[in-house]
């Protein structure tokens, strides 16, 4: 069951990534160039997804938007895992007041609404890709930190850690060689589950007009533009970018759920030994 879900998710994601990477390249046109003579045309053979209010082809532009959104999501997820795994593992391995203080900081970050903090960060650096990535990564590492910390707490007093310690290992060595690698599968599952969340965050920021500038395609900017066309009957301007968002979310969610099931399996197998 988990394998079928994983395969379906991977196939869908590969198709989406192929579409996002290849279409803008093969189309040979700049998706930002406007052609008002062709504005708001419905789907046809010439324009499979129709055109937007500036006459730009939505088949190409949705692909370009998907590419940008997926790129932002992947970078955010990786950064979140990096920060979260290090904070979680070191906090649990250190224990005592270091652990308590770190967890209160995590609670503090969690207490601030993510979107609000993201908006503040992005507003400071309007239209900057780095600011968008930072605003998502800096607000989403906490769940990874919690997962990794819980995993490391359950591992740090095991006998194989004692054995490494007696062999002369330092705390950092134990974290690096025994605790982090054991906690990493769980952290990666969290990262995969974070991907659609990051896509949604980026879309929301751009939809609110705080993300990327309107001419730069992302799923968020496309949905934001669709608002005006929708009232004039241009349903396709909303449907196709939204479909990209939903399909990317479903693909990644399927992969994440399958990986989470798989990560839980060795524990069960181990218990039978």
């Amino acid at each position, binding site marked *: 069951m988990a394998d079928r879900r994983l395969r379906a998710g991977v196939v869908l994601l590969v198709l989406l990534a192929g579409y996002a990477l290849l279409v803008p390249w093969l189309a040979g046109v700049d998706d930002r160039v406007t052609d008002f003579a062709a504005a708001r045309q419905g789907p046809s053979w010439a324009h499979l997804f129709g055109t937007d209010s500036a006459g730009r082809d939505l088949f190409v532009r949705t692909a370009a938007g998907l590419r940008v959104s997926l790129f932002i999501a992947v970078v955010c997820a990786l950064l979140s895992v990096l920060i979260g795994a290090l904070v979680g593992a070191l906090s649990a391995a250190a224990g005592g007041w270091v652990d308590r203080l770190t967890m209160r900081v995590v609670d503090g970050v969690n207490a601030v609404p993510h979107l609000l903090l993201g908006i503040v960060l992005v507003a400071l650096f309007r239209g900057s890709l780095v600011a968008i990535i930072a605003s998502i990564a800096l607000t989403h590492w906490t769940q990874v930190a919690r997962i990794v910390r819980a995993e490391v707490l359950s591992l740090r007093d095991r*006998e194989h850690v004692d054995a490494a310690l007696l062999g002369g290992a330092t*705390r950092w060595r134990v974290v690096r060689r025994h605790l982090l690698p054991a906690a990493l599968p769980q952290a990666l599952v969290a990262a995969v589950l974070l991907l659609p969340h990051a896509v949604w965050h980026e879309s929301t920021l751009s939809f609110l007009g705080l993300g990327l500038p309107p001419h730069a395609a992302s799923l968020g900017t496309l949905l934001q533009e669709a608002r005006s066309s929708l009232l004039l009957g241009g349903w396709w301007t909303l449907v196709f970018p939204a479909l990209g968002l939903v399909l990317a979310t479903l693909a990644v969610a399927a992969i994440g759920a399958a990986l989470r099931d798989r990560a839980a399996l060795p524990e069960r197998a181990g218990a039978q*030994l």
Partner: protein
Amino acid sequence: MLTLTGVDAGYEPGRPVLRGVDLRVAPGEVVGLSGPSGTGKTTLARVAALLLAPQRGTVEIDGVGASGVRYARDPRLRTAVGMVFQSPRRSVDARLRLRDVIAEPLRLRGLATAARAGATARTERVAELAGRVGLTADLLDRRPHEVSDGQLQRACLARSLASGPRYLVCDEMTAMLDASTTAALVGVVGAEVRAGRLGVLAISHDDALLDVWADRVVALGAAVAGPA
């Protein structure tokens, strides 16, 4: 000499499992420790191996007082005491091949000294240690779930010897093993002891084994102090 003096130890403050324990292990000597379940044999083993701080009393190794335990150990005592645990499954990282399990302390020693042990030297040393505990070369590339408890415990013993400890605590090392593996492992440890390289604290329920293995046996739960 590994010396425990007036040790109280336990896991909750004010509720020691052990009270006023004195114990001495000299290099070249095997001291057996017997006693019924729940008398604190493993707790004592963990105190001796500097994994658990005594609530009262002192631990001294070759004249150096142990000021901290676990990561806070005195650097001079970092690898002074080795330990072989009861369950080999629980005492190895399930992701590592046996070769890497045995090599881990060697890597650490390599990092700690100026003359960094090369990969070749390490491979040779792993092969030598594996040979000493009776592990064949083909087993070294297997992971823990692909070998038996006995084979895994052999690897654990090789790992303990790899760090070059002056004292070895064997906490029910043979409890999960068959007679021939037990004899083999006790023989390996015995050879190290006879060579004067090792003092051993052997913990076991098996009085018959301790009679054969240990130079003297102390019973926990009764008087623990051994002769000086």
